[in-house]
């Protein structure tokens, strides 16, 4: 045997290190034990974080990837370990988050025999991965991992799963790592068609009421500066999707708010009044468009998008510019005239005042006794750092936190957008925090969602990740309750929760905790939390039956956005 021969398990770990991963989230088990044995030898080169559940591991890897722009890495064993990753894979797939997940698998000779902890993970994970593969021979490990990292991070990013049989992990193979630089069936760079840029520029130059929508594609394509330059020159009002938030600062003069079911009033309403609609790195999700038959029918649509399959999927584009928006935006900025759209912009500002009077004022400075979710976020804004990361779960608190959080920097928004995964926030916040201990990571979560992954308080305890957890507790599955109130005759079917003493739970994990029930204590509690050196758990008891508005009800048009 040659000296350069090492175990497959060592190849796995060395390959991950070769891809510049500095942290792995994972959970050991039988079929992945050789890799865990190898990790023992490389702990000075790559950090492994033991979560309390594989779902926690993958959400943590997602949180890490979203704030860092790097590929998140997680490891699990075969069978139940691997199936526990599925929710995270589906979440990362729909939200375009780059991940490489490595699962152990039973030895190759046992495949298909229903061996202990054998599951067809490649089969199960196929619809929820950008790419997946089963590796059965030691010599195939390094090429698979190299290809996996390349696929995860290039083009439209996404999750990759690599299933490695136990025999491949224990066999010896040559260590010779060759990073993947591309292959023939996968084109990552699509050159922008200049003639389409000219057509788009002409539409924009002749438009009277142009309107720009931006999504996460701007963040993933690192096109934040290009977007800012485009807006500076064009004078066009711009609104963001849930995942696009932060791509430009909310202080930008062209920024007019947020789109979608619980977005802002003006951005939704005026979608049906613009004459040219420019969509950048967004996919016209149904939560953004409402009823497609009545969505922006009056407008000529320009769609800048990397993924060809997203073009004309939901909304037909007059001009579809396929390619990297970092390039296409820069080219478009060159081709357009410098302009201002003051009266059109004024419409947004007028409607913003309406929303302020009808909704925001009540949310932020309530007059009734009970605390609102909105005032909690408003107070957080007073003390947070500009680059503070907001991690949210799914439900009312998510929509309220998104509406009121003051986004100033890119990659400060981490939430489960497309899949709507309750239980996402706590582990994702952990992952976001472990990328950078010095950055403020604020995890806003509801009393329903936190109980889906509350075990990760254990990981926060063990890693001492200084996550600031803000539990907005209304003792309800609030969003479902809101729908029951509005659309199901207030029949509150199985949405009220008898909750545990959350502060005691946090304290049992050695996490400093506080409960706020009175408005007078809120400000100080948030200040204390944000200056505390270490993890902090703040429970705020809020109004039981508050609703999130504005709202575009299911099946309604964007112009039917309601303020109450």
């Amino acid at each position, binding site marked *: 045997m040659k000296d350069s021969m090492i175990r497959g398990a060592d190849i796995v770990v060395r390959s991950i290190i070769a891809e510049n991963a500095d942290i792995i989230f994972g959970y050991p088990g039988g079929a992945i034990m050789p890799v865990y044995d190898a990790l023992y030898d490389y702990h000075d080169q790559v950090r492994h974080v033991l979560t309390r559940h594989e779902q926690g591991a993958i959400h943590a890897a997602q949180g890490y990837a979203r704030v860092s722009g790097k590929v998140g890495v997680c490891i699990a064993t075969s069978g139940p370990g691997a199936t526990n990753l599925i929710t995270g894979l589906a979440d990362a797939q729909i939200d375009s988050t780059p991940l490489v997940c490595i699962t152990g698998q039973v030895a190759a000779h046992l495949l298909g025999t229903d061996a202990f902890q054998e599951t067809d993970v490649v089969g199960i994970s196929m619809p929820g991965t950008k*790419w997946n593969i089963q590796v059965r021979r030691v010599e195939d490990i390094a090429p698979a991992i190299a290809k996996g990292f390349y696929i995860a991070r290039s083009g439209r990013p996404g999750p990759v799963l690599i299933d490695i049989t136990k025999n491949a992990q224990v066999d010896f193979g040559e260590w010779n790592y060759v990073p993947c630089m591309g292959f023939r*069936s996968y084109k990552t760079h699509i050159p922008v068609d200049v003639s389409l840029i000219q057509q788009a520029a002409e539409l924009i130059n002749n438009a009277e009421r142009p309107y720009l929508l931006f999504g996460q594609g701007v963040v993933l394509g690192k096109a934040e500066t290009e977007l800012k330059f485009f807006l500076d020159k064009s004078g066009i009002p711009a609104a963001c999707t849930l995942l696009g938030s932060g791509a430009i600062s909310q202080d930008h003069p062209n920024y007019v708010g947020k789109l979608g079911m619980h977005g802002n009033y003006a951005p939704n309403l005026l979608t049906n009044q613009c004459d040219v609609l420019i969509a950048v790195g967004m996919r016209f999700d149904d939560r953004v468009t409402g009823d497609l038959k009545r969505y922006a029918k009056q407008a000529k649509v320009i769609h800048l998008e990397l993924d060809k399959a997203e073009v004309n999927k939901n909304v037909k584009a007059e001009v579809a510019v396929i390619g990297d928006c970092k390039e296409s935006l820069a080219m478009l900025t060159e081709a357009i005239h410098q302009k201002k759209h003051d009266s059109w912009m004024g419409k947004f500002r007028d409607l913003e005042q309406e929303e302020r009077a009808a909704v925001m004022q009540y949310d932020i400075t309530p007059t009734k006794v009970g605390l609102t979710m909105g005032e909690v976020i408003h107070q957080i804004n007073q003390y947070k750092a500009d680059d503070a990361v907001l991690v949210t779960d799914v439900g009312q608190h998510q929509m309220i936190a998104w509406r009121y959080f003051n986004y100033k920097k890119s990659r400060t928004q981490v939430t489960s957008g497309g899949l709507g995964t309750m239980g996402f926030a706590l582990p994702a916040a952990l992952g976001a925090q472990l990328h950078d201990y010095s950055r403020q990571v604020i995890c806003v979560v509801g009393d329903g969602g936190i109980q889906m992954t509350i075990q990760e308080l254990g990981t926060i305890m063990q890693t001492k990740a200084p996550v600031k957890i803000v539990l907005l507790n209304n003792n309800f599955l609030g969003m479902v309750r809101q729908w029951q109130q509005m659309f199901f005759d207030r029949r509150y079917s199985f949405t009220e929760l008898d909750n545990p003493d959350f502060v005691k739970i946090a304290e049992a994990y050695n996490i400093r905790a506080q409960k706020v029930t009175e408005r007078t204590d809120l400000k100080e509690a948030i200040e204390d939390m944000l200056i505390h050196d270490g993890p902090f758990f703040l429970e705020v008891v809020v109004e039981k039956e508050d609703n999130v508005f504005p709202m575009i009800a299911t099946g309604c048009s964007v112009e039917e956005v309601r303020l109450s």
Partner: protein
Amino acid sequence: MKRYTIFVITENFIGILNRITIIFTRRGINIDALTASESRIPGIHRVTIEVTVNEDTVIQLVNQIEKIIDVIKAFYHEDEGVVYQEIALYKIPVSKLDGGLEKIIRQHNAKIIAAEPDFVVLELTGHKEQTQELLEILKGYGLLEFARSGRVAVAKRMLTIESFIK
């Protein structure tokens, strides 16, 4: 709704067919017929899928198929854009052979490709309408078994696989 032929040029990667069919099943679209085989270039496979949908849908299907990492290229054609054939085999009991059947075989340009003590196997190559017509007739001859392939097709458009893999 219209009948389309989708061509998929793909790497020979385990599970690729599964990834392709998932795109149809998640939308509740039935695949009318599917054939897969190695192309004239070793290592590159060609999948031919027949599907009845509207044009917007077939465009989305093709875009999503092409998005699969190991798929090199996917495109679609209407029936007029392809030259296609299907093969059908019919198993008939020997006891039913008579002069009438001989005439039918001649009229349809079918062939007897196997003769066993108990049965013969007829083969007919053509479009589905033709193989279906013969099927209906042979039902009156105690047809024992019938099998029909999916469509194999080549495009009329002058494009080569090489132009996609360079």
